[in-house]
């Protein structure tokens, strides 16, 4: 009994020593979070003027309407942004800082080409070079978190090693002493420490995925991190195997006085962005001038939605500042739907292939954007799109969209060739690790004949898009043992 109490004390001391430096960061030193409700008040980059209701017997409201009638707002509801199509990135790039900010704030369009989500490269670079006037960016928070996690894992590995060593020594000693195994007490003292570390790591991991956590709004957008709940997942799959170290310590019938020397306290974790800045003396006030290397990059679907559906984007090329016409944009995007881009000659606007991946992707993009979702790329989760309810800063994406073209109207064209069940399961697994629901979106592709002659009609593009049909199937892994509520 004396043993156990001593054990407990040792454990407590150990965890306190380890715990203290790690408990400190992410929450306490966190700067105040910006008010995203204000920043992102407009869901779309379209300016609407609300005229008050017309009340016939109220002259003031009449006057207001007359005023609006004769002097329409100077800024018409169409603000036009200018984007440049780049054959290098096969996308549309926005470089004007106001346009970048506007498009990001009003509907989360595009992505910073050197950032996870919101273009923050300039800020990051300035801070890296020692500027003191800009705030911490989400990338830095993510990085710090990953560093912490790494540190924790190192610590855990060290603990396990120590533990193993101890057991080995004890074993050796015991063999010397008695030569026979007796009914000694198992040591579990320090494996407990390991376990606690484990939980702490988990805790850290969980804060990363916690969607409502205020400090890391865009965290998940950049999270191809080893998904956090891996330990639980392993267990759930019947693969649970006790840690070898723990097995060792629990079953070895050796009794050794619990070691009271708690592990050396780790120095508080210093946030290190770069090896050369961490040691540098940072002056109190410093302003750094950096040439911005970043642009806001619009996916082809995003750019086309802004240009075609909202009419707020004009697209130019590097060759001439003259904006392209809609059919020209359409053709350009059809060509650059895949890598390597299709040759110019292969695309004819009068007779294009409705199975073009730009079109299929755009149809789906248009569908969900029109329904109010913020649609972003899903490459990190091996899907086509992610759907955000309001935007990446508010919550994590709830749905992962997987586009599956379907050719029911085509003659003799097979559907979904070469896909096996395990493939589908791999997608759902990746996404359930990050608590997303996979939605299969079947796009029924029209035949080439159906879309022929669209360019002769007024608003023929609408006709073309109208030929596509969309069906959604939400998919979730159902495990009988764990879905009983």
């Amino acid at each position, binding site marked *: 009994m004396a043993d156990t109490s001593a054990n407990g004390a040792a454990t407590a001391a150990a965890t306190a020593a380890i715990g203290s430096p790690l408990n400190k960061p992410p929450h306490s030193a966190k700067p105040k979070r910006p008010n995203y409700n204000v920043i992102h008040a407009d869901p779309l980059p379209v300016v609407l003027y609300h005229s008050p209701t017309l009340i016939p017997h109220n002259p003031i409201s009449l006057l207001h309407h007359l005023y609006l009638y004769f002097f329409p707002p100077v800024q018409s509801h169409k603000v036009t942004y200018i984007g440049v199509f780049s054959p290098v990135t096969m996308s549309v790039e926005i470089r004007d800082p106001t346009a970048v900010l506007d498009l990001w704030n009003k509907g989360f369009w595009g992505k910073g080409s050197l950032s996870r989500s919101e273009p923050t490269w300039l800020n990051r670079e300035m801070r890296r070079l020692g500027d003191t006037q800009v705030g911490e960016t989400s990338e830095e928070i993510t990085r710090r978190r990953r560093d912490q996690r790494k540190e924790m894992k190192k610590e855990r590995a060290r603990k396990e090693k120590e533990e193993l060593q101890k057991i080995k020594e004890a074993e050796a000693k015991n063999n010397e002493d008695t030569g026979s195994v007796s009914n000694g007490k198992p040591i579990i003292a320090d494996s407990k420490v390991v376990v606690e570390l484990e939980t702490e790591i988990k805790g850290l991991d969980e804060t990363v995925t916690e969607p409502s956590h205020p400090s890391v709004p865009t965290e998940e957008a950049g999270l*191809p991190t*080893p*998904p956090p709940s891996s330990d639980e997942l392993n267990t759930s799959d*019947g693969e649970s195997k006790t840690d070898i170290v723990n097995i060792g310590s629990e079953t070895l019938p050796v009794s050794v006085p619990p070691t009271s020397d708690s592990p050396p306290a780790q120095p508080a974790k210093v946030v290190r962005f770069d090896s050369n800045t961490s040691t540098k003396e940072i002056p109190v006030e410093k302003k750094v001038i950096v040439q911005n290397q970043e642009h806001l990059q619009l996916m082809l679907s995003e750019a086309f939605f802004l240009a075609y559906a909202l009419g707020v984007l004009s697209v130019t090329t590097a060759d001439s500042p003259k904006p392209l016409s809609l059919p020209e944009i359409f053709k350009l995007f059809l060509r650059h739907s895949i890598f390597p881009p299709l040759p110019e000659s292969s695309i004819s606007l009068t007779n294009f292939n409705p199975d073009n991946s730009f079109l299929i992707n755009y149809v789906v993009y248009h569908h969900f954007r029109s329904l109010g979702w913020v649609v972003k790329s899903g*490459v990190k989760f*091996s899907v086509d799109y992610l759907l955000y309810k309001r935007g990446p800063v508010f919550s994590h994406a709830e749905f992962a969209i997987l586009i599956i073209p379907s050719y029911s109207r085509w003659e003799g064209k097979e559907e979904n060739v070469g896909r096996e069940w*395990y493939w589908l399961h791999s997608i759902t*697994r990746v996404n359930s690790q990050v608590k997303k629901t996979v939605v299969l979106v079947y796009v029924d592709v029209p035949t080439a004949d159906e879309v022929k002659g669209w360019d002769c009609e007024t608003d023929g593009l609408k006709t073309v898009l109208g030929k596509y049909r969309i069906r959604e199937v939400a998919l979730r892994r159902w495990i*009988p*043992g764990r879905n009983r509520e």
Partner: protein
Amino acid sequence: MCGTLFGTLPQAQQQNIFLGLPLELMREEARLLVDQRELQWGKKNIILDWIAGSNRSLKGVATIVEDSLAHRDAVKALSETDKADILSLKIQEQDKLMLANREESIKRKEAAIENAKASGKWKTKPARASESSIDKSKETPLFESTLDAIVDGVGGEGGREELASTAQRTSADDGSQRQYVIPMASSAIGLHSLRLPREAENIPSPPDARYQVYKYLQSLGYFMSPGLRFGCQFVAYPGDPLRFHSHFLVKSLQWDEELSMLDLVGGGRLGTGVKKAWMMAGLEQRDIEADRPESHGVRTFCVEWAGFG
């Protein structure tokens, strides 16, 4: 090679080996067995009876047969003398069993009485329960004592048929004087002369890429199990799946089969999420280099998340 036990709970698949559930082999496993000619028995749908193996030769030729058909054909093919032999064998078995049972129960009763007397708890009418508990206290393997119970419980001739259809074991001689034979419905025939075709036409033919990769990893000592649960073709363990975590999620490809990068990203992410590597592999289509004879011409590429980006 380990196969998958059939009809287990998803939470405890491997542990149920002791319940004697049928084992389902992957196509690749069955094929490898046929190719290597190591086992003799088999069934269509590659379901093998795990326990049945105990009384059959483990050396010989693996043959895959369609169970019901082959069984019927084999029975039809039996000659009259064969049938008579089998019948007499069956009767012999039954007699032997009855005799053994009777002897045993007498012996046990005596033993029980002895025991009870020794411990001074002798009662005129020993209860069955105490008898069996005493029985267990002897150093009988758990498995055998349950068998005793079954045999005792069934007792007379009437229960014999029922027993035959439910019990699945043929217990071996345990070294002591006691011996039980619990006949399986077809055990006598099976023991006698079931004429199975030596080469069956329905050898499983898994897709070549898969089989080559399976064979290659197997030759390196990896244990493979089906990958559906993990979203891949195979899961490869560096040893006994009960002892090790798996290392690889394997996807086999033809040498010129195209793989989309989205699948590569998905695979890499999938593996890293469960602390495994995602592996793509296939049979190399060119002159197999002399300096890598160990590779069977299979090339493998392992993918893990790079830790940034």
